[in-house]
């Protein structure tokens, strides 16, 4: 459950959304478990379900025009010490991800957080491997631009 939540949060960058997406992931997976023919590929299959659940959650949230900001998150950015640390990188990344599309966040999270190879990304996202390469490249460019923009705006 932790792994599903982690992936959901990496895609959605929002705790409440990640919670809903994780729950939806389990419900969907439970209903569709009979379609899983190769138990050895359960992890990849579940991540595919999680990515789809995150997309659905993101769409619903966007329609409502609501974005919850956890209380624990308020003020954090202003209080950061000016030191180059992993923690600072993490917060920059979290902020920058908010500028990316849901599909870009998904492919980046699967690759850089979950360590999925290009072939595995193709399977999970159900797209050709050539498309995976181009989308990943585009997502990386977008992320770098977003990171730069975050740094400049701060």
């Amino acid at each position, binding site marked *: *459950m*932790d792994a*599903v*939540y*982690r992936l959901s*949060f*990496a895609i959605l960058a929002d*705790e409440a959304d*990640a*919670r*809903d997406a*994780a*729950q*939806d992931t*389990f*419900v969907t*997976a*439970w*209903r569709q*478990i*009979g*379609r*899983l023919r190769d*138990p*050895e590929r*359960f992890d990849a299959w*579940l991540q595919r379900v999680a990515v789809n659940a995150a997309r659905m959650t993101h769409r619903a949230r966007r329609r409502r025009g609501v974005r919850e900001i956890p209380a624990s998150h308020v003020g954090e950015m202003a209080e950061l010490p*000016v030191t*180059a640390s*992993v*923690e*600072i*990188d*993490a*917060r*920059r*990344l*979290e902020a920058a991800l908010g500028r990316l599309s849901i599909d870009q966040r998904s492919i980046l*999270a699967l690759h*850089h*957080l979950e*360590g999925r190879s290009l072939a595995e990304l193709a399977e999970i996202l159900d797209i050709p491997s050539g498309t995976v390469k181009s989308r990943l490249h585009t997502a990386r460019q977008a*992320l*770098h631009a977003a*990171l*730069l923009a975050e*740094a400049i705006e*701060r």
Partner: protein
Amino acid sequence: MTMSDDWGEDRLANAYAAMTAARPAPADLQGGTLTALRTASIGRGPQPPGFARLSSVAASFGAVAIALVLVVVFTGLPHNGAAVPSAASPVAPGGSIAPSTAVSPPTGSAVPTILGIPVISVPELIALRTRGPAPSPEEVAVRGWMIRSNVVYDCAIPDIEQHPLVPRCLAPTFLMERPERPTELTTDGPSVTPLLGPDSHMEVDIAGQEPVEVIAIGHLADHRWPTCQPAEQDACRRVFVADRIVPADASLEGLPEPWRIPRSASSEPSTDPEDVVSRLEVLLGDITVVFMGHVAAGLLREVEPAVVDRGDIDSATQLHPVWVARALVAGDPEPGVARTFIIADRRVHEPALPIWDASEDGVAPLPEREQSLRWPPRGADIVEMPFDDEPGRPPVQVAVIDKTGKLVEARAATSAQIAVRDITMNAVGIADLPDGGVLVDWGGSMCDDLLTLTISASDAGIPDRVTVDGRRGLPCRLMLMYYAVVLSFDPAVRAEDLAGQYLIGP
């Protein structure tokens, strides 16, 4: 503010890891999901926001065929105690161990056995040991007289690695045909010097001056002989390894008290021996445990030298304590030959490791065919519960094995019955019901489609444990499903007298 913007692969991966580590899953996510699912499925109480889809899923199961509350109805559960191991019926439920054909009993007499193992004399053991180029590894029970020698003799410790089959500098313990008090390193009558290692059950006090009549259960051709020094291998094969020494008039019931390595171990095992046996029986069918013990992390090499040849197993057992169980497996081609199993002692919420099989070929994971499910388990009643709205989804099967002979009914829990207690994650909850029976429930994996529920009895034959084994399904440990059954016993059993455990993981 100036910051490096060279975001390489490692930096990005580290940032991702730190970002998600700083936002752990809410503590109530697991329980909340499960509780909401249960609430939705039985159609009671308000549904918290965010679970709209859960209710639609649950509703699709219909009013009666509620998949989350297992509807287990048995009509043919036995009332008798045929499944309870005893001295008269020493083999585990439903099975039988054929007497060894390697021993010839006196003509016209019944073959005496203990734990289903033929009882022979000391001269017969000597004959087995010296017969042919290699003795048989079949388990035997030797009746004789035992005494520990008090002879003191010089002993030079050889400069070679110690081996469990070649103990150095031990005063011998004699297993004799006749009661003697040897004053030398030999006896007048036939005798052998059995190997009593740290993995032997000694259930007799032989420290006195007088010999004690015993039955020594053990074997020749121990599987560890190939790891002896080449010059000592033949001698190693002919060592009589004593697994268990019991009084000659013993009536063996239940499991022997596990030995411990080290003997002074202060920490308690994470899992109970009964659960270890249950896991083995789920995989292998009926077994008769000859010995059983618990080895602290890092010490398995002392009793299983071959483990050093398997880096993966060695690493795992350096980190985790293990159970070692030697057992006769009823379904084996050679059921008279005991096998030695190594089972990681891991907590129920940890992923299970394979069961390892120690044989002459070394220590290796149990063959895949044996790790895979043996279904249905022997002596089980099976109930299938289809998913009505999903024709392609295999039904959940629950196998109930009653070892007490006192279970008269297992049935679905009603909404009112479920309401008596809250869910306990990763554990079996047991509660008395006002109208009789006990509620047994647990939060299980959504991948649990083949479940074994085993009701064990104490030495007194009283139901004392319910073990739910969910390890037959996919390698999926997600907690989502809620399961609840009501068990009725005759005579009635109180919840406080029952313990429960849920085994999860692949």
